């Protein structure tokens, strides 16, 4: 690495801000094409119903209508695929019912797509949609998660008990025996509340078919355009991949909800050829609530066994996971591979067993949302550990320290091998930053005001950059999980980098440029980072699972290594030295031990003007690409401490202090990393205190379908957060030593908040969200 430049580790202000701050960002809805038409989806008003008849005759006559499509049109088109096959305990595969582009014969949740109406304007499309006559035969709806298996109705005929799969990981007999021999068992049953991701940019798509070339272009608010293209072309529409370009331009937040292939954009692409016109659709917020894939929604019972010294001996977890009405792209992996494999947490618990009952319900599909499985795992572990500490009268930090993993690499009993970590360091620093020593005095001050004060801990671990592909494949993944990068050096020494990662807020255009600038010893101004367009970028698996820098950044580093290696050969030729004598530092190729050197730009110019060039050994040009498939996950970890004050008269919880100390390994841009933690923490605090997606248990109507009903955290709901990134333990298996930071805050924070509320009130459990109503009910119940 180049010491002189040293962009790595600096809080470089973001380069991408300029366009966002001046209104020059280009989001999908900002793009209007020549001959543009507009789409509206008619959606099911019922949670579960047979479509007895459907007539579009009147609607088709309405002003401005260009075309109307229903499930009948899509009968011959493939269903939306699920990307991860999970097997039952008995080895049989999961139930995988058809996920239609538009409903056919039956609707299965409120908001299910019934018809696509395309018109000259949005208003005309809306008006025409209102003229479509649908006669429904309403069926009983399966809404209650706990009762789904025994419900009188079946969401899908092929799953009469509404079970998608019954899956298990770990040593069942060993865990049962460990719990039987335990000196103490703590047990909890709780609901990890259902959430709506709520990126502020609603989902949007604009599909265009070019009749002269038979090419499609899809602009779509999406986190992984190549995956979108692959799934849509190869598994649904049968369009040759080289005839489809997917562009994910500026994307206004994703949080998981824009990973998936949805029916809306798929229908648009198909219909754009039928109508020979570009079609644009932008969700209204109420549609986002109804139809974006939701998150969490687990019902879990957890038992932790401890020996007489407070050492964990066994952890038994039973979870019922709601998958919604259809299998979204990664739905099946979230409550299994991304959840149960994390149940060791930061601890040496020798025996763990987790059983997952995944069910269909008449609700919107549930899939990955910031953290995806890991927040649910962390909540499970950190709530039960804190409960055990309070039951045994052991300081919660001390109980954790007694059980921390201290020796790495550590092979957990649920399939992961942690490469590195220092859990004492982050816990001890968090305790210090949170001034835990001053808690009793603050508590006394609160009590003097008639208020309750509590302290809650959480020590999370997450696994980022899902990998390697071979292992993921053995576990049921139907995709590879590598990343691709390309470094195109121009003749003048300027550089364009193409990455398969996608930035929708993460700041890649700055962070990745910092890495490239240091590696090549050139100014950041000489580097451009391109992403989000299958027409430009060779391939990509996209951005999710906090993988961009660890996987996508490493692919770029590998490509840079190739550029430098070739550059050395060119430089050796120019300076008449042996290849092995050339070193590259500070943007200069040097002959080791001499004062001979030539700058990077001279080598690049020689590569493209190869008059004096080793043509016998090298091709001209300086353009390299690399694919990187990691050998392991990365394992960020940290400790969070929340201090709350609760007003027992009103049930209002105020977070007085929130302290986070994270180990993300090496950090490229501390300012961006802290920003990621802030955002994650607030989503986690939102889950713990405010957010809750609620369906009517009888009708299946979404009761929280707008910002009037779904409580999003606002600036005045949140305190100032104390966030510190520890010096950290660098990841051992990627060259940057980075681990990923995008999801940590959302993963670690909910149990810290709930542990604090429970501590304040002296109660064992508090359902999320700890809204004033729920807190007030809990206080009443505890009296």
């Amino acid at each position, binding site marked *: 690495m180049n010491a002189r430049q040293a962009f790595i580790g600096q809080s470089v202000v973001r380069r991408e801000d300029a366009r966002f701050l001046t209104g020059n960002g280009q989001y999908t809805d900002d793009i*209007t094409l020549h001959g543009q038409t507009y789409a509206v989806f008619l959606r099911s008003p019922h949670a579960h119903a047979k479509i007895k008849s459907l007539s579009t005759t009147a609607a088709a006559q309405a002003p401005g209508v260009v075309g109307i499509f229903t499930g009948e049109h899509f009968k011959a088109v493939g269903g939306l695929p699920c990307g991860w096959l999970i097997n039952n305990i008995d080895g049989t595969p999961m139930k995988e019912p058809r996920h239609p582009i538009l409903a056919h014969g039956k609707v299965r949740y409120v908001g299910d797509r019934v018809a696509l109406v395309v018109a000259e304007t949005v208003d005309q499309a809306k008006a025409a949609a209102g003229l479509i006559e649908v006669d429904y035969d309403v069926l009983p709806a399966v809404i209650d998660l706990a009762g789904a298996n025994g419900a009188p109705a079946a969401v899908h005929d092929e799953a009469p008990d509404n079970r998608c799969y019954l899956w298990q990981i770990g040593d069942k007999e060993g865990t049962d025996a460990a719990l039987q021999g335990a000196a103490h068992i703590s047990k909890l049953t709780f609901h990890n509340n259902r959430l709506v991701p709520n990126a502020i940019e609603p989902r949007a798509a604009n599909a265009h078919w070019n009749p002269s070339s038979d090419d499609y272009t899809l602009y779509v608010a999406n986190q992984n355009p190549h995956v979108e293209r692959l799934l849509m072309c190869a598994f649904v529409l049968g369009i040759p991949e080289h005839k489809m370009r997917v562009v994910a331009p500026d994307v*206004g937040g994703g949080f998981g909800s824009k990973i998936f292939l949805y029916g809306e954009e798929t229908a648009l692409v198909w219909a754009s050829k039928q109508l020979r016109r570009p079609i644009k659709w932008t969700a209204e917020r109420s549609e986002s609530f109804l139809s974006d894939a939701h998150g969490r929604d687990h019902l879990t019972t957890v038992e932790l066994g401890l020996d007489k010294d407070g050492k964990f001996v066994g952890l038994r977890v039973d979870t019922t996971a709601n998958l919604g009405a259809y299998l979204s792209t990664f739905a099946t992996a979230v409550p299994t591979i991304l959840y149960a494999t994390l149940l060791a947490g930061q601890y040496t618990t020798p025996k763990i067993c987790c059983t997952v009952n995944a069910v269909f319900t008449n609700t919107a599909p549930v899939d990955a949302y910031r953290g995806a499985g890991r927040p649910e795992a962390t909540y499970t572990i950190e709530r039960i550990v804190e409960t055990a500490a309070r039951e045994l009268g052991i300081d919660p930090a001390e109980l954790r320290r007694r059980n921390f993993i201290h020796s790495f690499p550590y092979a957990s009993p649920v399939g992961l091998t942690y490469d590195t970590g220092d859990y004492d360091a982050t816990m001890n620093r968090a305790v210090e930053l949170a001034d835990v020593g001053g808690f009793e005095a603050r508590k006394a001050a609160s009590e003097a005001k008639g208020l309750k004060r509590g302290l809650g801990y959480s020590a999370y671990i997450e696994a980022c950059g899902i990998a390697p592909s071979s292992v993921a494949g053995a576990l049921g993944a139907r995709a590879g999980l590598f990343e691709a990068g390309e470094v195109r050096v121009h003749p003048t020494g300027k550089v364009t980098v193409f990455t398969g990662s996608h930035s929708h807020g993460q700041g890649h255009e700055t962070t990745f440029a910092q890495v490239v600038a240091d590696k090549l010893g050139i100014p950041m101004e000489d580097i451009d980072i391109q992403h989000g367009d299958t027409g430009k970028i060779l391939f990509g698996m996209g951005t999710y699972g906090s993988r961009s820098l660890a996987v996508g950044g490493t692919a770029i580093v590998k490509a840079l290594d190739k550029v430098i290696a070739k550059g050395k050969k060119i430089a050796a030729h120019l300076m008449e030295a042996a290849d092995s004598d050339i070193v590259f530092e500070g943007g200069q190729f040097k002959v080791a031990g001499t004062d001979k050197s030539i700058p990077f730009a001279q080598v690049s110019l020689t590569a493209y003007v190869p008059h004096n060039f080793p043509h016998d050994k090298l091709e001209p040009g300086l353009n390299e690409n690399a694919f990187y498939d990691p050998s392991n996950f990365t394992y960020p970890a940290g400790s969070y401490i929340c201090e709350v004050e609760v007003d027992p008269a009103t049930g209002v919880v105020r977070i007085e202090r929130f302290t986070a100390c994270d180990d993300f390994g090496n950090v490229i841009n501390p300012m961006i990393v802290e920003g990621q933690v802030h955002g994650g923490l607030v989503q986690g605090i939102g889950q713990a205190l405010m957010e809750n997606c609620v369906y009517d248990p009888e009708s299946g109507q979404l009761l929280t379908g707008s910002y009037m009903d779904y409580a999003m955290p606002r600036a005045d709901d949140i305190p100032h957060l104390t966030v510190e990134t520890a010096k950290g333990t660098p990841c051992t298996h990627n060259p940057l030593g980075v681990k990923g930071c995008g999801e940590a805050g959302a993963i670690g924070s909910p149990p810290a908040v709930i542990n604090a509320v429970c501590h304040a009130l002296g109660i064992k459990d508090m359902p999320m969200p700890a809204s004033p109503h729920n807190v007030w009910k809990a206080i009443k119940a505890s009296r």
Partner: protein
Amino acid sequence: MAQLSLTVNGTKVSREVAPQTLLVEFLRETLRLTGTHMGCDTAQCGACTVHLNGNAVKSCNMLATQAAGMKVTTIEGIAAADGTLHPMQEAFNQCHGLQCGFCTPGMVMSAIDLVTHHDCSSEAKIREGLEGNMCRCTGYQNIVKAVTQAAAATKAMA
């Protein structure tokens, strides 16, 4: 259709609009000023915030024709003619007050109104003042930091 004349970012414009056209639709679709965003249907998120005669309004919550004869300023109109950023834009950049950028135009327009017309003497007051604008990315911390910085700069200029 109704004839609508108003001033947008210092330029007089006159267009025929359908009477039900919202101000945000007029800005985005008719004038192609796509910096102003729509994030919700219920005037909750604030992504569509613009200035109307110098005061912040949610442009999804009024008809275009209600702005007849008035001065509208959007995110495209706050930097100096030579491209120098407004102190609030500058502060958002320096403090990392934005991530995905979607709420940012509305947030910046609200924040300018906040420091111009309201008490920004404490973090609590700034947080309360930003209550009408949602951000899902930043957790608000760096937005508050940016507004604090810009408020100090504004006060120093006054």
